């Protein structure tokens, strides 16, 4: 188990190297520079600016310099926001995205999993069919349709929540709801399917045969084992939610890292693009690692060597 974790952590090195080099090459292949303006800058100024940000170095040198900075957790200066470093931007914007993603994920888990269990326990009843149709709706409505809808109902008509932007806890509700719905539905569906599969296992029959109460059978014996496929999607779902926050940040004008990413691409703000991509890549890799570890904890039959 320990050597497995070490190997998986070492595995992030090639991932980060390749993700960073693809991103680096791709963003430098996009025409235009951070200093492209409606009115062209005088050549001398342009040249000085490029020299200041080392954009006149050969690409391979820029890449090596960047990765060297990355190792020291120094992500360099932002080109578009002259007075801020990328570290400043990450420090201010990442918590926003992380909060939004965290709340959305929590909501999806706390609502989705019980909904799935309930559906499975009441299989083929009205409750089951009803919640599965709702879950299907949840999977089917994209954030760009759901977000404006929620704003219209709860912010413009009922005036319960603010329309957009960020600041107070009530600002979190609508975007978190928008972000979590699809995953809530996915959790409900997978939990239900997995419960239904587990209750046919023989150890459930055995648990019943020894006279355990139905609720104990369902929760202690069935639910625990049914959680295994749920954890497999929970890790990637968390990574997806945090990445998907980018969509919701656009709709609700939330100053998170995703909104900065889209802006930075427009500004050709290379250091911000790199840092954001690497940050998200790290989240994804980390989540996949957590999934593998949680497997072993939930299912004693799985052992890593």
């Amino acid at each position, binding site marked *: 188990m320990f050597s497995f974790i070490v190997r998986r952590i070492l595995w992030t090195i090639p991932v980060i190297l390749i993700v960073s080099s693809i991103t680096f090459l791709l963003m430098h292949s996009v025409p235009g520079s951070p200093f492209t303006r409606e009115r062209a800058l005088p050549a001398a100024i342009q040249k000085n600016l490029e020299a200041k940000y080392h954009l006149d170095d050969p690409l391979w040198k820029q890449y090596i310099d960047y990765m060297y900075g990355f190792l020291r957790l120094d992500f360099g200066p932002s080109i578009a926001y002259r007075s801020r470093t990328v570290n400043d931007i990450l420090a201010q914007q990442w918590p926003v995205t992380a909060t939004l993603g965290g709340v959305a994920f929590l909501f999806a888990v706390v609502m989705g999993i019980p909904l799935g269990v309930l559906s499975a326990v009441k299989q083929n009843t009205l409750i089951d069919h009803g919640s599965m149709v709702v879950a299907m*709706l949840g999977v089917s409505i994209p954030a*760009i349709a759901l977000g*404006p809808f929620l704003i219209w109902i709860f912010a413009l008509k009922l005036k319960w929540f603010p329309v957009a932007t960020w600041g107070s806890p009530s600002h979190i509700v609508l975007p978190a709801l928008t972000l979590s719905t699809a995953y809530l539905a996915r959790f409900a569906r997978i939990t239900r399917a997995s419960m*239904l599969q587990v209750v046919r296992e023989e150890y459930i029959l055995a648990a019943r045969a020894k006279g355990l109460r139905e609720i104990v059978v369902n929760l202690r014996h069935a639910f625990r084992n049914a959680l295994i496929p749920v954890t497999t999607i929970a890790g990637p779902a968390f990574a997806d939610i945090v990445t998907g926050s980018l969509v919701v940040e656009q709709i609700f004008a939330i100053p998170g890292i995703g909104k900065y990413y889209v802006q930075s691409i427009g500004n050709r703000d290379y250091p911000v693009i790199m840092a*954001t991509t690497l940050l998200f890549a790290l989240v994804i890799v980390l989540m996949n690692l957590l999934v593998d570890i949680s497997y072993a904890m939930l299912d004693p039959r799985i052992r890593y060597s």
Partner: protein
Amino acid sequence: MAFHTKKTRSDDETVKAPPSRSLTRDAMRRLMKNRGAVAGGIILLLLIFAAIFADFVAPYSATEGDILNNYAAPTAAHPFGCDFMGRDVLSRLLFGARISLAAGFVGAITAFAIGVTFGLISGFFGGKTDNFMMRIVDIMYGFPTLLLIILLMVFFKSSFSVSGVAGAGLRGVLSNLDRSMGGMFFIFLGIGLTSWLGMARLVRGMTLSVRNTEYVESARAIGTSRTRILFRHILPNVLGPAIVAQALQIPGFIQYEAFLSFIGLGVNPPTPSWGMMLSQGYLAMRSHFHLVLWPALAISITLFAFNFLGDGVRDAFDPRQTR
């Protein structure tokens, strides 16, 4: 309540089904009994019809508006109202079905082609090749897809599309192709290049298992060439499940297109994409909610239909699944 005594619907049917039926017909029968899937299928057929015949079905032009009608509320002449340029919303929705369905289907086919080729080669050659190719897939899995597709779209758009006069050579050809498709070509490419990983893994796994079956071994024993084994024996066996798996991905691709067009990296205006209609309507939502309502409904109903049909097909072909 006792679980183990309870039969599920699919259990009943396996008991009832006469053994003479073929697997496909049996699955079709199960599919037809699934009301959600049938409803989804009908909606999809209507949508496909609307997309193909949009020129005849749509009452107005999708790109030319009457500026006097801007933001017109729904009336008898314009049942869904008009947008900020006075264009008929219903007509734009109908033409928009083309964009969404094209993104879903062509995007799926592009990703499918890349994924199947990659997985087939990896599984068929095995050994070091397989190991190397699958490590590539593992690494690419660490890539935040949404970020990559945005970066790719910016790269495509500013390297090829906006260059004004189309250049010569490949760049000019691609640029013209994309322009003639209203910006769709690069969306297909973007979806294809970012969404083939799962397919590659799936096909590779199936290829590995088919490669070791007895009929492939016998084919090899009578001296069949590797190419023939690959295309006549392995590919046909891998293709079926791969197609079903890919069809389940279509709603995701439709969402990609809608989102990209929403943030302005998708189709070129005035091409009517539902995502773009949403973003334009969103700006005027406070006073003209119908501009958001209809495109939002259109895309949700489409995805709903795809998901229901997809679920039904999967259940029909795999009666043990109880999802």
